[in-house]
């Protein structure tokens, strides 16, 4: 209440008006401007280090070397990125669809949920990338092992998050549904599932970040295609700047996919931030 407009109160409160007016501008600056400034400073430091210590591009390329790589192979990098993106999205899509269906079925009954949730949490913590070489043995060198690894890596976060969301309905809302004599389906669809949405999005955001990792790990194991393969091949050719260019693209891909989901969440669930904050 320090920002009240009434002049009588501003006097009492010790003239907080200036701070009140300045605040909205500062928050926009701190949410976009500060991270941007941080990133620029980090790149600057990195660049300065390569120059000051005379590090050769073979060990650590400076930002201009990476830009040069982008300009040398734009089509190649873009095509390989699309391959990685496709594997990521297909694997993620299947994992989300399957994960949602399975967790909705499992969470339907308290007994089944209690029997399966601990197992799923345990499986979630198994490092799935360890099976990447086995997937090559089972599925060969094509797209399948990549998609399957992405799927494996995305599946458990989605299931665990969805199930915990579905089982966290507040007692008063369940009671309300009961007092309205809502059917099981009605309370499931109108209350439980909707209530779980923010949690489901937590799972999706974890999964999408992991999905890119899964795709790249699979590609590094066995591939002629994708950004993972670009990194492996650039190693053979001693072209470190190219590897860095591929890594940069991977980072951009991850970040963009993550923020697309975060944006979708804000659009679909404007209430979620308000009640959790």
């Amino acid at each position, binding site marked *: 209440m320090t920002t009240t407009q009434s002049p009588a109160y501003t006097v009492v409160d010790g003239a907080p008006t200036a701070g009140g007016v300045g605040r909205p501008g500062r928050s926009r600056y701190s949410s976009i401007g500060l991270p941007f400034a941080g990133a620029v400073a980090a790149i600057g430091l990195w660049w300065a280090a390569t120059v000051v210590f005379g590090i050769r591009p073979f060990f650590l390329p400076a930002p201009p070397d990476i830009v040069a790589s982008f300009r040398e192979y734009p089509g190649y990098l873009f095509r390989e990125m699309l391959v990685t993106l496709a594997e990521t999205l297909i694997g993620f899509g299947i994992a989300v669809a399957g994960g949602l269906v399975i967790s909705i079925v499992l969470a339907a009954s308290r007994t089944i949920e209690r029997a399966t949730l601990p197992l799923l949490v345990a499986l979630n913590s198994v490092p799935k990338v360890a099976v990447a070489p086995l997937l090559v043995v089972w599925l060969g060198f094509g797209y399948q092992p990549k998609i399957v690894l992405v799927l494996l890596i995305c599946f458990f976060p989605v299931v665990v998050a969805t199930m915990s969301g579905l089982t966290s309905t*507040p007692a*008063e*809302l369940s*009671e*309300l*549904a*009961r*007092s*309205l*004599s*809502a059917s099981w389906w*009605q309370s499931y669809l*109108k*209350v439980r599932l*909707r209530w779980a*949405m923010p949690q489901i999005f937590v799972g999706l955001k974890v999964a999408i970040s992991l999905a890119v990792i899964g795709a790249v790990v699979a590609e590094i194991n066995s591939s002629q295609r994708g950004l993972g393969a670009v990194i492996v091949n650039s190693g053979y050719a001693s072209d470190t700047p190219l590897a860095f260019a591929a890594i940069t693209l991977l980072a951009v891909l991850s970040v963009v996919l993550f923020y697309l989901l975060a944006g979708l969440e804000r659009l679909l*669930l*404007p*209430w*979620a931030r*308000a*009640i959790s904050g």
Partner: protein
Amino acid sequence: MIELVGVGQTFRSRDGEIVALRDIDLEIREGEFVAVIGRSGCGKSTLLRLIAGLLAPTAGQVRVAREPVTGPRRDIAMMFQRPALLPWRSVLDNVLLPAEIHRTRSPQLREQARALLDTVGLAGFHRRLPHELSGGMQQRVALCRALIQQPRVLLMDEPFSALDALTREELAGELQRVHMDQSCTTVFVTHSIQEAVLLADRVIVFSPRPGSIRRLLDVKIPRPRSFGYGAHLEEVAACAAELHELLLADPSPRRDFPAVTTQQPGPNGP
């Protein structure tokens, strides 16, 4: 309208059985406003849940409109301590939730919901989400949601207890007006002597452990009542004082919940 015959409720817990209610005999007439008052943990909420059909009594029988209660009924609306609004639904859609569940949604009902919201001072807030509203406004939405079903019985479980004192009084006044308009049978559980005196035709004073009716008190103050000037201040004060005596004369319930089975029941009657 509501009859309870020899109703008792015993809960099983790890530490043995807890007698929440014992030998409740009560008849509530159609259109009557009954306040149930008592200390925490004296089984007031349990009583409400029994009438609502959310809980089956372990002894005796509950009847609403001469039919034994076997489960939640559509002509009973319930209001809780917390507003229990669905955070993703607009105010209007929250009010229409019961109609949606009972599949009675219609354009007329939508209009009715709008009108209801307007009468409780929420005109212009129909499209807002619950989190954009204050606690008092949220509870008003919950009241509209309860009334949209045009219930014959309205059950309220300390609906204003989470609000600040001024908002409580305001909402109590509003509820009084609504009740004078619609006159559905209302059972109102509260901790507040003020609210009980302001609202009720009859006050049921509960004694704790095991919950039982200690006293029935008729409140014969003409309506509309208020705590403002020009109201029936003396009667209100006298009635409040009597309730105060009754409630505070009760021995304070033991803190180490639950230990009822080993305890002697409190004295019945004054």
